[in-house]
């Protein structure tokens, strides 16, 4: 699966390869957003705690 992603990033690809690569890229973006949001939440909670201590 990662092979398709790498290939489509460096050279032209089409059909199933493009579809799989696009799908993986989209999922990665979604998961990174979730992780990013988690870290933002933890940072805000830390700030909230420190602001009132």
């Amino acid at each position, binding site marked *: 699966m990662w092979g398709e992603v790498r290939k489509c990033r460096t050279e032209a690809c089409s059909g199933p390869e493009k579809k799989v690569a696009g799908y993986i890229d989209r*999922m990665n973006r979604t*998961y990174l957003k*979730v992780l990013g*949001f*988690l870290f933002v939440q933890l940072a805000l909670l*830390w700030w909230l*705690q420190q602001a*009132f*201590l």
Partner: protein
Amino acid sequence: MHPIDWGVLAVLLAWIVWDGVKRKRDTTGIEGYFLANRRIPWWAAGLSVMATQLSAITMIGTTGQGYVDGLRFVQFYFGLPLAMLILSVTLVPLFYNSGVYTAYEYLERRFDAKTRSFTSLLFLLSRGMSVGAVVAAPAVVLSLVFGLPLTATALLITLPAVVYTMVGGVEAVQWTDVKTMALIVTGVFVMIGVAVLGLPEGMGVTDGLSVAAAAGRMRVFDFSFDLTNPYTFWSGTLAAVFLFCSYFGTDQSQVQRYLTARSVSEARSSLLMSAYWKIPLQLLVLLLGVLVFAFYTFNPAPMIFSTRAEQLVAESSAAGTYAALNGEYEAVFHVRRQAAEQLVRARSTGDPAAEQTARAELLARDREVTEIRGRAQAAVREATGEGSFNDVNYIIPSFILNELPVGLAGLLVVAIMLAATSTIAGELNSLATASVIDFYRRWARPVGSDAHYLTVARIATGLWGLFACAVAVWAAELGSLIEVVNRFGSFFYGSILGVFILAFGVPRATGTGAFVGLFAGMGAVAWTASFTPVAFLWHNVTGAVVVVVVGMLVSIVTPGAPRGERSAHARTHADVSIHSG
């Protein structure tokens, strides 16, 4: 309650039941009844996932915990987004694409019938018992709010759920959950508004939070690595991942919610909604408790928030001691209020030294108040014989009834009731699904018409509803046993997760390996719980790890069917013979 509040309660309950019952038109077959014909939008499925997990215990217990202990409990949810990511990649596409009705159905395809039936049985046992506890905890509190007997209150909470779940199936459950979530979130914001507006003139949210912080209620993070403490950063981010993976990935009450989505992508999105919003929602609920604490620092608060408990003590031989304790409480309460006012003044004048002094004074006086409240609760326990009495669950209902205007109080009581109702409905529906699909259709009648299975599904929902009512009344009478029943599930969660890890991640794992591993995991958890002080969250890690290790070892020495080979009896809704009746 005021007659207007009763009116609000009656109208909202009738609306919820009517709205659920009318979904009957879409449930003409078991796919409609159990999976809503897979046409629920992702956001509704996501809200349903959140509503099923958010029970009345959250509304009254977690807010009360915020009042007593502050924001610390939010750490418990730090692992939830990570668990959701893991499930989105692993089990969600697996379940959705295999077209199963229950998570356990997949285990027969991968392993064998005994592993499927046993894990499904464990689900039925633990969920069947916990559905009673879900009713019992709020029923004890709401019976005092309503002035009704405990049995009548338990029935008032359970019957609406039984009616609309039995008639409308999972679609009724999920659309009711959407409304319930809207009502609960609105209710929490309303209560926060009332708590803030009730602070003395000139004081705002930050003043209230400063007062709460000085009393230790704003501490979120605890980085100590203490296996006996369930609420630390490490238990929340490491051990809780196992719990949430198990709950959202292998518990039918949750799996069924996202199996109703339109596609695997939407099923993922519905789970990821919790990944984004669970921590903020839980923080909001805890903040409500913290702000109610600030409110009751400046406004008169009873020593014990249960008027019934106070009455019972007043009628007992401990009445004199209790009255003396109350006098002591009022004196310290007054001094704590002065310290809080001093702190707010020091903050507004920007005097750090005065602020520091006021903080120390407030913390010391708050500890005294807590200590006196502890003694008062001990007096109640002694006078009433209720060994587990604690007024944490009475704080928010007391705030609602005494501080909210007529009408709004009714709305908030309905929100608490519906939080219980929606959880019960989700559990009844999943219990009926597992009973019919994993047992009735698997063992008793493998071939039958769609109409026949639909009738059996409705009967199963009704029977589980009756069972829930009976367990609720029994559990409520037993008091402290509610907690025991609640912890019953934690014995199995980690071990069941271990079986699914073997199924998904270990190609060499065999049915015998998984089955033996499951028993070994449960045994390890039972031993850990009985003979070590390790906190319950870590039991999930113990169970999962032992199942995987033992399962792998047993798989090496036992021959098994290669992965992918289907058992002769394994069938899904796609290939079972259904004769439309």
